């Protein structure tokens, strides 16, 4: 019997489930778990003879289908050739707004994060944007972000075909309802119930008293994560891969 599924492994598996059906998924800088989730979907589809998934990892030499430089990702999204992408966020609010810049007042934010990266663009053009934030707390999931790097919803004078699809943390999974502009609790991870989520989420959302539990990977999927996926991650995320459970 192998070591039990870790919280990170559950998130990696959940990401692979959220990506089901995509043909092309891209993963930005500094995103080892989203990268692992995309790689896992690719591996599972290969194993099960389902459709081929194109995975484009920014910063990778091996897992990179682009040849036109970093701008190709954005062009590709604009052309409708990219189905899914990930955004993090120091703060995420109940309207799906994302803050990657910092807390407090701009420009002299007392806490400053790296910056908005491509969020203000990709959020409009990629159909399935998965919000990913490990920390589930009143600090990270707020009523209203201090700075909008990328807005969750937009009026009809602006071209938009993309936006938030789901929000995944280390405690729960939400879906995003675009019409309503609100999140809906889908499931809580093992070890958490709906009260924990309510107590640690700073914004209002639907289906508060959700009783569903996030599905866990089976043994063979877990073995895939600990074997092939861990190896594939090493190129771009040697430290992260080194800290994962796995052989050797």
């Amino acid at each position, binding site marked *: 019997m192998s070591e039990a599924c870790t919280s990170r492994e559950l998130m990696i598996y959940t990401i692979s489930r959220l990506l089901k059906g995509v043909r092309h998924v891209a993963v930005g800088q500094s995103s080892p778990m989203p990268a692992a989730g995309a790689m896992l979907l690719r591996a599972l589809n290969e194993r099960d003879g389902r459709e081929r998934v194109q995975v484009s990892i920014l910063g990778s*030499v091996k897992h990179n289908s682009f040849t036109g430089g970093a701008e190709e990702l954005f062009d590709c999204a604009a052309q409708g050739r990219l189905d899914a992408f990930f955004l993090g966020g120091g703060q995420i609010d109940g309207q799906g707004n994302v803050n990657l*810049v910092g807390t407090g007042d701009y420009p002299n934010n007392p*806490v400053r994060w790296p910056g*908005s990266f*491509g969020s203000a663009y990709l959020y409009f053009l990629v159909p399935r944007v998965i919000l990913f934030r490990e920390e589930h707390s009143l600090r990270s999931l707020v009523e209203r972000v201090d700075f909008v790097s990328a807005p969750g919803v937009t009026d009809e004078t602006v*071209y938009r075909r993309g936006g938030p699809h789901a929000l995944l943390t280390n405690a729960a999974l939400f879906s995003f309802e675009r019409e309503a502009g609100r999140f809906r609790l889908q499931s809580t991870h093992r070890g958490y119930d709906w009260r924990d989520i309510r107590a640690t989420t700073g914004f209002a959302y639907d289906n508060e008293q959700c009783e569903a539990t996030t599905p866990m990977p089976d043994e063979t999927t877990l073995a895939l994560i600990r074997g092939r996926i861990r190896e594939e991650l090493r190129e771009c995320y040697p430290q*992260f891969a080194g800290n994962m459970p796995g052989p050797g």
Partner: protein
Amino acid sequence: MTDFVTPQKMAEMIPSGCKLGLAPDDYAAAPGLVRMLIDRRIRDLHVVCAPIGGMQVDMLIGAGAVATLETSAVSLGEAGGAPCFSRAVRDGSIRLRDATCPAVFAGLTAAEKGVPFMPIRGIIGSDVLEKRDDWKVTSNPFDDSEKIVVVSAIQPDIALFHAPEADRFGNVRLGRRREVMLLAHASKKAFVTVERISDVSLLEDEKMAAGVLPAIYVSAVAQLKNGGWPTGLYAEYPRDGQEVEKYARAARSPEGFQTYIQGSRSAA
């Protein structure tokens, strides 16, 4: 047309106050060259990150060389946030022009194509837009009902980056890092440090030519072996994660930053 110089000479050719375009981390200005800029106390730079910055940018900020920073992000990757950058933001010691990656590319593309602006989708509703006086919301000239952002051209005075190889004619191989090609096209001059200099023209092999920046864009080349250390060089050698970690820890305080810069000089 291309001058072949020493790294020291190249550092001297970059004046205080210029608009300096930098490629991302794993193709960015050689950290060793950045240290030479710091040693000669370069000041008042307008740094354009194309489109994000790393340790090089953090070092320049820490040394007080940057007046204006135009970027979509500054990060040390796996080593976390950029400490000198965060400190300068809090202190208000740099003028910030926050951006989003494709808007930087759109601005560089405008300069590449010699037009004053470029339209770009998205962005509307982002506070990034609110803070930029060189971006505007306009309407699509072919459909009044659609609002769309236009961004101004970005033309750095000097693009500075580290690449695997130049030839003795001044052509530089960039491979598929086309955003570095864009940066060079958009800038008035390109200064390039390289691992090695080939005697054979890089344009000779038709299969390779597509990834080569022609000499007409390259003002100066300097050979600097292992110049990408410790941030790495794409498709050539990886970053030295321990060294970047060491920097990240040291730079948490201004004193630690000074000690790192002085202590590591000999290693460069």
